[in-house]
């Protein structure tokens, strides 16, 4: 390779130019993280599985009209539960894959302000969560439509407050995944924890009312979903504090401080 005029110009300018590049805009980080969360085969299959679970569970109230309450909220509840199964896993992987795949080594040399990268990941999870909630709403509407078409009478008991509660329920489930992923950094361990912890605390809750009332977040989030605010608001907030805010805070500190090998 011979040294051309362009080469020497570039050589002369490169070092000084390099210092004057502006920082990475947050929108760009967001776009990159959105791509990373959705561009692998594993991620796509997982999103397909989330959709399939939602559609699959919606068949239950349609085909069991005698045993399942035929109301709008009942149908929406099936969408909510379906989304709470796999959606946290999507969020977990968004946070943990940098560590499990060791790409943190590259990512944090591309943007050393780690908090910005993690914030972008959290926003991506929230966008996915909101999108999933909308999808859940559409599947519910389709399910209700199918039930109505079969000539059933459905109790139209939905209101704006309950729709917001549904959105919050989905988002909070996403955030438990985000918090676990931020804290644990290991995909397998975080996913196992996300399935074992709710079951574990539900079982402990049978032995202790204290656990059942304050630490079993499945119950607390279900109060939220059913619009049972009164009397449970403090318990719901405690569940959010213990299962989202606290692990997320510790996880973010850990992420920012962790040395990468």
């Amino acid at each position: 390779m011979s040294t051309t005029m362009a080469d020497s110009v570039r050589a002369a300018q490169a070092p000084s130019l390099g210092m004057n590049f502006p920082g990475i805009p947050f929108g760009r980080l967001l776009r990159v993280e959105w791509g990373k969360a959705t561009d692998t085969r594993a991620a796509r299959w997982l999103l397909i599985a989330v959709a399939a679970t939602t559609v699959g569970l919606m068949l239950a109230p349609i085909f069991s009209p005698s045993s399942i309450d035929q109301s709008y909220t009942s149908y929406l509840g099936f969408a909510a539960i379906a989304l709470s199964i796999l959606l946290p896993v999507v969020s977990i992987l968004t946070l943990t894959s940098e560590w499990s795949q060791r790409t943190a080594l590259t990512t944090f040399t591309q943007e050393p302000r780690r908090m910005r990268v993690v914030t972008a990941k959290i926003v991506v999870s929230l966008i996915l969560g909101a999108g999933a909630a909308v999808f859940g709403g559409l599947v519910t509407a389709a399910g209700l439509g199918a039930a109505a078409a079969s000539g059933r009478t459905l109790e139209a008991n939905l209101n704006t407050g309950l729709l917001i509660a549904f959105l919050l329920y989905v988002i909070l489930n996403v955030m438990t995944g985000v918090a676990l992923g931020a804290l644990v950094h290991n995909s397998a361990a975080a996913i196992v924890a996300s399935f074992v912890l709710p079951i574990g605390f539900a079982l402990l809750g049978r032995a202790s009312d204290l656990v059942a009332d304050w630490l079993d977040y499945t119950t607390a989030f279900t109060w939220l979903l059913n619009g049972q605010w009164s009397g449970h608001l403090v318990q719901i907030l405690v569940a959010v504090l213990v299962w989202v805010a606290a692990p997320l805070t510790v996880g973010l500190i850990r992420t920012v401080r962790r040395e990468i090998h």
Partner: protein
Amino acid sequence: MITATALTKSYGNAPVVRNVSLHCEPGTITGFLGPNGAGKSTTLRMIVGLARPDQGTSTICGRPFVDLPNPTRVVGTLLDPSAMHAGRTGRATLTIAARMAGVPTTRVEHLLDVVGLADAADRRVGGYSLGMRQRLGIAQTLVGEPAVLILDEPANGLDPEGIAWMRGLLRDFADRGGTVLLSSHLLHEVQATVDHLVVISHGEVVASGPLDELLASSSLLVRTPDPEALARALRAARIAYAPGPDQTFTVDVVDGRVTLEIVARVALENRVLLTELRQSDSGGLEELFFSLTAGTAAHSQEAAA
């Protein structure tokens, strides 16, 4: 330009890096040489902000790495070619890097050609060989058109052809004014590539400087059938010497003040016959390096490579 000043780090009670300083100028390739476990990777990780030094500082182009607004436009980093997402294709991996750097994604196609991965661009990285990952990693470092490259063991997994290719690429990069810092545990691997060396052992710098100075012999060897006459002549000329076996003398070059020509002239003027006059086979650095690596894993790796 890369500057590290007195970097020091311990894990627990075990010191890993002690007081390591180095300075890499534009237009040069610096080899960071030492046996496995000497602290090379830890030092490089401190320079790029992935590990915190207990003491000491480092800058790239005058700024701490973590303060660079968009680091990949300034410095390309390849610390571990296996640290790539196995489920992503080579092209996707480079596209992410291009987006982060804010360069047009058309640069991705160019770089895939440069590193010879155009045909494998749509295969997932999980199916790449170590050499292919190394090439992809090199492409990734070049995405942001940086002025500085920091590479940890870049020759690992490359075949001789690949090593020659990389040598040319790095030489070209430095000739255009770039700064390169690369680590290796094999002297012979870097000898033909680098022009400066920093040798590290047990976390400490044991030698550093321009390669030719470090490799230059520090003494001359003189052989004569008449040792007594030569000894007299050298004494008269105030040149220090040490008698060796087989009618030889070793003469210290005293930082270049005593040259082959001076010794030849002394012999000529005193009519002493010389049968041999040359630089001693010191390879001081080589001896130093092999004494450092002796008995370590480096040897077995070299044998396996």
